[in-house]
């Protein structure tokens, strides 16, 4: 089992979800995150130019069995990219154990 954490553009969220579904990944959690990075946005307010230090992105946390890792990563890489700075990152971590609370099942069965 692996945990795949992806930080993507909010504007790409719907496409990424669809690509994950196509790769048969149906369940994951996500939340909105704020970070700092290389992207520079030249905003203007009342004649003063300012750069937003906060970059808004969406973070996806996906637990998959080992055989799904490549397909999942591939789906995000393809659907989340615009080619510009700021497309995001994907991290893959080992996942020690997983349980389904309702039944007590563990391992791959708990999320399939």
């Amino acid at each position, binding site marked *: 089992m692996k945990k795949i954490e992806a930080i993507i553009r909010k504007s790409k969220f719907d496409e990424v979800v669809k690509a994950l579904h196509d790769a048969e990944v149906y369940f994951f959690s996500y939340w909105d995150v704020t970070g700092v990075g290389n992207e520079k946005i030249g*905003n*203007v*307010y*009342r*004649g*003063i*130019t*300012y750069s937003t230090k906060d970059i808004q992105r969406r973070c996806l946390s996906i637990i998959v069995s080992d055989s799904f890792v490549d397909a999942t990563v591939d789906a995000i890489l393809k659907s989340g990219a615009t080619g510009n700075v700021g497309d995001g990152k994907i991290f893959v971590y080992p996942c020690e154990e997983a349980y389904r609370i309702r039944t007590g099942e563990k391992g791959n069965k708990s999320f399939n």
Partner: protein
Amino acid sequence: MELLTTNNVWMMLCAALVFFMHLGFSFLEIGLTRQKNTINILFKNFFIITMGLIVYCLVGFNLMYPGDFNIIGNGILGFAGPGLDAVAAADLSYNEGYTYWTDFLFQGMFAATAGTIISGAVAGRIKINAFMLIVFLYILIVYPIVGSWQWGAGFLSEVFGFYDFAGSTLVHSVGGWGALVIIYLLGARKGKFDSSGNAVAIPGSNIPLSAAGVLILWLGWFGFNGGSVLSADPANTSLVLVTTCLAAAAGGLGASFVSTLAYKNLDITMFMNGILGGLVGITAGADQMGPTDAIIIGAIGGTVVVLGVAFLDKCKLDDPVGAIPVHLFAGIWGTLAVGIFGASASFDQFMVQLASLGIVGAFCVVGALIIALTVKSIMGLRVSAEEEEKGLDISEHGTKAYFSS
């Protein structure tokens, strides 16, 4: 009697429209500042309209319209005694334009707006108690005395021949001068200027709310200028509403054009401030101008606002809502414009306008300095850095304006 009834209905409607402007000022101020100071702004604005009306009833009205009760000189300082006069009110021959009661209510709504102008400029860092004391004294003393010089048949109108139709100087610049003095003493919000002294953008928290505020203010101006005809005289009221609206429109377009040219960006807050600059600009001569004059005055008023915002930033003065460019700078422009455009344009009139501006400005600056320094010595003006950081809602009023659930 029928004429009085018609006139009086119009004047009461105008008083109601000016009253409504207080919601406009509140919305504009809330939208252009940070969310953490929202309750503080509402509190200030509620205090201004409530305290302003009571103080104007008890003292201000008779200080501004002293009649024959002179104290100093002829038309410099007079006071017709405290409270409203029910005997005078019962006499309906008081005025053919409106009753005594209407007169008080309409003028009372005006008095409070001078305090509201100060509120916008000092947002986000003034101690609420210091603010309330300052505005109380300013509306109690400075506003009615200046008003008496012109509208109370004092020396500016009777000796100088100064002209200020609805208060570019008497209301807007009076509030603007007070605001300027107090933000100078108060200092900028934390983070408004970086370590090398450059202005930093502190974007407003709710632009749609400020947009509602600006449109409410524009609507309120129908009463502010329309009621300053002091009757429902068909020719004059209609002309005044036309010049007022044309100037507002030209002010918005002018400001938007200039700010787009200068900053290569279509800035909505400049657009909105420009509308207000056009309105303040036309206020001194709304009944003197033709449509073309009104458009020119409005467009320059809007331009003055854009340049004024940049000028204050250069001077390291922090005015979060642009109250000083709108009310003071455009107010000065509108007052001078009476000598340049329209029915009473002449070099002599221009000089009278200039001199009167100087006298009013000096009185307001000195008055505001004395009031603000006195209050500073009693309780200080500014909240601590920590309180400012937390926001005045939490530190001054113990709660927040918005809860996420």
